[in-house]
């Protein structure tokens, strides 16, 4: 489950999940939902895999979301399904989505970057939660 939250100049994304891998997947979808207004119209037809190395969970989250942002900027690709798995060196992700098509997809925000300001990745009594502020 993900949502956006208030920030004066920019926009925050927040997600929660039972597991850390679920959390990272939700945060990825949250990022794409800020870029594409109708993410539910993105068909999971093109598969891609990504690896991100790192140990610190917060830096890893920033790096993961930054990889997704680059993928969008560079290839106009957005994912509507994401699976994440952690391993000793970091994380691997399987994405399913497609190249955005102006006729079907409404692009909404240009995300400049994923910031470190008030960045949170936490284990809660119900599972996991994270917050990130995006520079818009």
């Amino acid at each position, binding site marked *: 489950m993900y949502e956006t939250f*208030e*920030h*004066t100049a920019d926009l925050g994304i927040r997600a929660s999940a039972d597991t850390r891998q679920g959390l990272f997947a939700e945060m990825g979808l949250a990022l794409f939902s800020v870029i594409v*207004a109708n993410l539910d119209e993105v068909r999971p037809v093109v598969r891609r895999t990504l690896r991100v190395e790192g140990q610190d969970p917060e830096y890893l989250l920033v790096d993961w979301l*930054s990889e997704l942002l680059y993928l969008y900027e560079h290839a106009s690709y957005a994912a509507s399904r994401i699976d994440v798995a952690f391993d000793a060196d970091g994380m691997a992700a399987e994405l399913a989505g497609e190249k*955005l098509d102006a006729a079907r997809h409404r692009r909404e925000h240009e995300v400049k970057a994923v*910031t*470190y*300001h008030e960045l949170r990745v936490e284990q809660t009594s119900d599972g996991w939660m994270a917050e990130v502020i995006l*520079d818009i």
Partner: protein
Amino acid sequence: MKVANRFTGPLERAGDCCWRIPKSYKEGMRVDGLIYADDKLIELIRQDPAPEQVANVAFLPGIQTASLAMPDIHWGYGFCIGGVCATDPQEDGVISPGGVGYDINCGVRLLRSELEFDDVAPHMKQLVENLFQRVPTGTGRGGKYRFDRDQLRELMGDGPRFLARRDLATERDIEFTEAHGCLDGAQPDYVSERALDRGYDQCGTLGSGNHFLEVQVVDQVFDRQAADVMGLDERMVCVMIHSGSRGLGYQVCDDALRLLRGAPAKYGIQLPDRQLACAPIDSPEGEHYLGAMRAAANFAWCNRQLLMWQAREVFEATLGRPWGEMGMELVYDVAHNIAKCERHRVGEREKEVWVHRKGATRAFPPGHEELPEAYHEIGQPVLIPGDMGRASWVLVGQPGSMSESFGSACHGAGRVMSRTAAVKHARGRRIDDELATRGVVARARSWKGLAEEQPDAYKNVDLVVDVVHNAGLAKKVARLRPIGVIKG
């Protein structure tokens, strides 16, 4: 209207339009925080966590005099937006990419013309439509100018001179751009492949968020002499452009922050926010960032030059006259997200310091050696975009900016409503129709984008400008009202 964490720390009156956060507020602050605001604006500023960020910036090693904030201050990431801080390399001063921001050399340029409102009024709808079709706006839209790796590196090394060689800039355009659009010491080789990927088709594109291209009319002149020198007069049509270094610059900042992750620990720097990551100016990490930052800044000046060039072409096509004949000359181009090495008096000594301006405009006074000759007597034009319904301003730098704010003034109106709150506030409304009733033709790629940027989301720019005028940082020259706007 309010965001969750209102500032509850001390704000002591330090003058008619200045408020102090004493360095005793937090252990680790090296200097006071100083916020320029009148009694009305300070109440709005208290509703926002931005003053906490002013206090956090005061932790930076080598910071001089005070951590400053302009009246358009609002909550940013790390640094507040509207912040100014100067650091001295001789006192272990640091450079902080967060003090420049992701959008390196985001800035504003103003193009004047000899057209009067009545000349363009019958064509406004077509003019705005043509601008919207021809000038790339919004996310995911590349421009018509494409540069390969080698060309991009040359562009980042030379700034708009690179474009002049391709007949996309004039000598006069370059003369009236801050730093002639080219910071010395740019190191295009320090700009990553990924940044080049993001930038290759984005030079000459507007972007989204608060970036815009506006057609404006001079509404009122406050300083006739300065306005005459700049070629501005009542009813005259101008074009204001607000954009920065696009994906290339965002990536340069992102790369630098990754490189600096270990720097605070390596150099023994205590910081209250990771987004303030920094390194000593003369460290390898600091020098790497500065080389890449200057290259991205030069890219941004080329971006605004190409945006202006396209605007001239659209005016020509729509009105059927060459732009030179319509007197469409650049008044000035100024950066408001940048770090620059400048000479300033600190206490009894004049010295070189690194001035970080994060949402603050350089405001050099008359006689400053960096001004174009034509502006020596009046001071540097300070361009302050407001919101798209009310007004924007042209000011000129005053001596007070050198004695008080490291040669800086405000950069805009400053947000007062979060993006989420603005969208809620706009629910069920057509912002473009509302703007039309105010006499503004607006075109945008996204309804949400327009809702987030609606006039109510911003402070009244007139109040912000009053503060910098009354504080002696910059002087009012002319007020401009929007008549057409394109956005992402």
